[in-house]
């Protein structure tokens, strides 16, 4: 019989499940849907533009594509270490915190040129790490408050500087607001060169220090106990994070830059377990989202690139969350449904067999449906549904007389096996645990469907010599 949850609990669970489902679907579908809507407003069709983009005829498009892909790859590789160490939000904080550096260096230089702005951003990033370190060391300030407080303070200062520059007579043309949400078209050759150099350094560091980084990311305490200098690796990683964030800011903006570092690795982690494959997959997902984002930014130049890249990788993440073979929500749901159906079917066959034994006739005697329904305590609708499924599965055959059923050999075997499992388990609970005799039945009802052959053979050897058969503790006739 199907196990019944209390009604309210059931409703609550299903609401929760559907809320989650719809939210994820909304997240996945919204991006393309809105994008389509926007394209209606444009003159040339999207496909022509896409074809144009991939003909690599426009040097700006090529530059954007290479830049965004390189940054995506970089973020995907490095982000693995951020995600595995569960400090994703430190990346977010670092992203926001470099804004005042950009503002200050603009105020000093008075123009927007890549290298000075990057230098300013790096100084701000380092300064931020120091401030965060100082504030986090105070025991009275909780870690989450410390993080939230410091990065918003830096960001606030950055906003003050930016708004001050923008409101001043010389600064209105600076285009510094591009740093907030990014504009991939603004990627220069210098940016690309820097990011490729950084990519090479990162790749070399990962290859050369793979063992150490692996141990360090999964278990820092263990790493330091076997003599790995964890502080060194921490700072090495922090420097690489800062550089990556700083170089990516141009393309995706300070507000959303962290998504570049956490979404691809988290997605990869859903799909694979080993660090090596996670790195490769995450790098690939990063590259893909970067490329998609740059394409969108080429198609809709009015919309900042950062959010586009984020939505591209979020869609991949949502897809993985739903359809990852082992941990995905949909495969999980399907597996659960399959299990439930098998259990229901097995329960029906068992009940039919019990009916025949109850009447003291041969196991394979045809069963009149009406008689059985009178005997069975379960809901008639449910029973007839199960019978139809069993007939489709060729487990039940119609008898000679009208409205009778015959259990096939396969069905008999399955029912006998379940019945035997049930009794074995009840016997085991009765003999080896302190569970009251009237409690063993309910537990056995569930376990009978999941006992594996090797557990059964172990149970048999434990219980060898005990009476097994029609005696069964819960019926009180042992």
């Amino acid at each position, binding site marked *: 019989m199907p196990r019944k949850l209390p009604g309210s609990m059931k409703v609550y669970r299903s609401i*929760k499940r559907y*809320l*989650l489902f719809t*939210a*994820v679907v909304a*997240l996945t579908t*919204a*991006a393309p849907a*809105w994008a389509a809507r*926007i394209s209606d407003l444009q003159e040339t069709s999207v496909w022509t533009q896409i074809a144009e983009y991939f003909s690599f005829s426009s040097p700006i498009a090529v530059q954007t594509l290479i830049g965004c892909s390189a940054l995506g790859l970089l973020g995907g590789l490095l982000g693995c270490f951020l995600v595995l160490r*569960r*400090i*994703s*939000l430190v*990346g977010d904080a670092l992203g*926001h915190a470099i804004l005042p550096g950009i503002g200050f260096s603009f105020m000093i230089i008075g123009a927007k040129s890549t290298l000075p702005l990057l230098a300013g951003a790096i100084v701000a990033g380092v300064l931020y790490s120091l401030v965060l370190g100082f*504030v986090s060391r*105070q*025991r*009275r300030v*909780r870690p*989450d*408050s410390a*993080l*939230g*407080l*410091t990065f*918003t*303070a830096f*960001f*606030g*200062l*950055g*906003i*003050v*500087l*930016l*708004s*001050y520059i923008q*409101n001043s007579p010389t600064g209105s043309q600076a285009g510094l607001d591009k740093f*907030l949400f990014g504009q991939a078209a603004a990627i220069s050759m210098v940016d690309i060169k820097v990011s490729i150099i950084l990519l090479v350094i990162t790749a070399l560091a990962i290859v050369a220090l793979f063992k150490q980084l692996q141990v360090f990311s999964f278990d820092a305490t263990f790493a330091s106990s076997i003599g790995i200098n964890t502080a060194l690796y921490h700072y090495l990683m922090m420097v690489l994070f800062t550089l990556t964030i700083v170089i990516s800011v141009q393309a995706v903006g300070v*507000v*959303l830059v962290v*998504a570049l570092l*956490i*979404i691809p690795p*988290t997605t990869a*982690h*859903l799909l694979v377990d080993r660090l090596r494959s996670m790195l490769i997959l995450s790098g690939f997902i990063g590259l893909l989202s970067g490329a998609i984002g740059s394409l969108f930014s080429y198609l809709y130049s009015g*919309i*900042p690139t*950062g*959010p586009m890249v*984020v*939505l591209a990788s*979020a869609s991949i*993440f949502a897809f993985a*969350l739903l359809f*990852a073979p082992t941990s995905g929500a949909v495969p*999980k749901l399907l597996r659960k449904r399959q299990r439930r159906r098998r259990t229901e079917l097995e329960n029906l066959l068992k009940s039919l067999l019990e009916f025949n034994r109850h009447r003291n006739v041969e196991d394979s005697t045809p069963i009149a449906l009406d008689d059985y329904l009178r005997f069975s305590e379960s809901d008639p609708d449910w029973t007839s549904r199960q019978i139809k499924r069993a007939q489709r599965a060729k487990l039940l055959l119609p008898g000679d007389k009208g409205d009778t059923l015959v259990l096939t050999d396969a069905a008999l075997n399955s029912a006998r096996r379940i019945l035997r499992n049930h009794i074995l388990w009840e016997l085991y609970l009765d003999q080896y645990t302190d569970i009251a005799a009237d409690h063993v039945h309910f537990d056995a009802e569930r376990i009978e469907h999941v006992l594996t052959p090797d557990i059964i053979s172990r149970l048999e050897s434990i219980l060898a010599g005990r009476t097994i058969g029609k005696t069964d503790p819960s019926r009180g006739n042992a």
Partner: protein
Amino acid sequence: MSFHDLFIAPLQFEWMLRGLLIAIFLNVSLGIIGSFLVLRRMALMGDAVSHAVLPGIVVAFLISNSRASLPLLIGATGVGFATTFLINGIKLSSKVKEDAAMGIVFTSMFALGVVLLNSFASHVDLDPDCVLYGDLLGVPSTTVWVMAVVTLAVVAGVILFYRQLQVTAFDGLFADGVGISSNWTHYIFMGVLAVILVIAFEAVGSILVVAMLIAPGATAYLWTDRLPPMLTGSAILGIIAGVLGLYISVWLNCSTAGAMVCVSFLLFLISLIASPKHGVVARWWRRRKLRRRILAENLLKELVRLNAREVAVSFERLIELTRLPVRRLQKGIMRLRQRGLIDRPEPESVRLTPDGEVEGMRILRYHRLWEAFLSSEIELPEDHLHRDAEEMEHLLTPEMEAQLAELLSDPDKDPHGSPIPPSSSN
């Protein structure tokens, strides 16, 4: 620039008065709600929700096509709720950890909001830059009334449900134990948070608002251990930051929200350094005092061991025994002389006064009593006793001494066989 020019002159403008009202209302309600966020260690949840309500706000704007607050409120509050559900759902149903789940959900929602906003910028009366830092001085006067009502409601709600909020903020399990549902309190609290974040959005945007939530609470927490003064303090700190930030933004012609956050953080840093109980300076001062006391007590103990009541002990001998740097030793001896615990019969040697001997005996007694305790009760080997006792001798109190003496039935020898001096109170 006189005081009048700086502070009074701007008040003649109606927008400035309105701005002040908004700054005060907003910061009071944000500060109070934020205190609970700080105590519940949910500061980053506040960050996530404030980012994530953006698409809700934009869609509500698109549908109602007005700045009227009700549809906005409902739309965005719904999205805020969905975000907490979504983060929780991802965390529970997959192996994604909470920080990554939070990071992914709020960046994605925020990105969605920005894209929506930019694609429909021409249809909505909403400036994309507003998302980042709001427009406090451009808020219509109807919103001021909404803010006033919400602020009053927050204050009234906190007073009415004070017990529930207090208990759940500090110990959710205990709250459940005494029959206050921490789950319900949590969801109602998240609802109120979402409403306030939406209302604050127009004025200060959705990123900087986090600082206004957390900073006053975290700052007040540095000054007090009790909830009522923390709430009041955080409201007052919020008002100071709001008003001062508003003035600064008017003087410099820069973002109001940004200026408020800077002032807020400055107040936090000042408190972190100067708070009498938990401040860096106060803690440093306490550590210094402890260090000095330990030095003095160690010197006295050493002098008692050397029987310096009768024989003067030379500096050289003390340096050799204690291995202290000369300067520290000199300073320690100078302070002991000032307290009249030792005197100096010759320039380079010291002798204990009667008071000094009593004090030194006390330390020696504590040291040996503790060694006896470790040896007989904890059964530590003999060569492990000394180091531990070296620290505990400075920390024992007369009550603990009495208890130890009673527990060990007033021993007269320590485990190494040296005599334990009698208690000074006898």
